[in-house]
C-alpha cells in the first residue's frame, strides 16, 4: 500500500478513528458512571466489581476527583 492510499477518511482510518473515539467515550462514561454510583451511595467494592477491576484500582483512579467534587466518601462499606 502506498502512502497515497493512506487517506485520513478511508475505511481503515475510520476503524482506527473509531477506536480512539470509543476510548474517549469509555473514559467519559466511566468517570460519569463512577461518580453517579458514589453519589447514590455505592461502595468502592461494588463499583470495582461492576467495572471488573480491583477496589484499589478504582479508588486510586477516581478518589481524588470525587473528593474534589465534595462527594462524601466516608462510611463506605468495604
Amino acid at each position, binding site marked *: 500500500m502506498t*502512502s497515497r492510499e*493512506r487517506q*485520513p*477518511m478511508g475505511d481503515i*482510518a*475510520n*476503524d482506527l*478513528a*473509531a*477506536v*480512539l*473515539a*470509543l476510548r*474517549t*467515550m469509555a*473514559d*467519559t*462514561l466511566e*468517570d*460519569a458512571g463512577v*461518580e453517579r454510583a458514589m453519589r447514590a451511595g455505592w461502595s468502592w467494592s461494588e463499583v470495582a466489581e461492576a467495572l471488573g477491576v480491583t477496589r484499589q484500582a478504582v479508588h486510586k483512579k477516581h478518589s*481524588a*476527583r*470525587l473528593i*474534589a*467534587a465534595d462527594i462524601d466518601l466516608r462510611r463506605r462499606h468495604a
Partner: protein
Amino acid sequence: MHEVVAPMSTRDVAKQARGLASELNARTVEAEHLLLVLAGPCDETARILKPVALDRGRVEAALREERQASLAAAGVEPLTAERATRSGRTRAPQWGASAKSALKRGHEIARRGGRAGETPTDLLLGVLQAELGTVPRALAITGADRTALIAHIGRRR
C-alpha cells in the same frame, strides 16, 4: 485607553492548549487542542486560517462532526450530555502523542528556516502536516485543502 496586547508566543499557545484540554476534561493535550488555540486567540495564525473559513467555531464544529463520524463507524451514537456529565479531573492533562509530534515538527520547521525559536506559524504547519488522525480528518470534514494550505503558508514566508 487602548491596551496593547503582546502577540502570542508558541509557549503561550502550548499553555492555552493545555488549559483548554483541562477545561474539556481531556486526559491528554492533543494536536486538536493546539489547532483550536491557533484558530482562535492566536492572531498570527488566525489571520492565516480565516481566509479559508477556518475560524475557532468552524474547527470546533468539525471536531464534533469528526467524533460523531468516528463513533458512527463503530455503530455507536454519542453520549447524551446528561450521561456524560462528570466532575473535572484533578490532574493536569499530560502531553499526548499527536501534540508532541506537532510540536516536534514545528521545531524542525523553524530550525530549517534558520529561526532560533519556533513561531506560532511554524507550530501551525507542524499541526497541519499530520497526514492521519483527528486533525486531518476534521480538516477534511471542513472541505479545507490541507496540502494547498500548507503550500500557501510556505509561500507567504
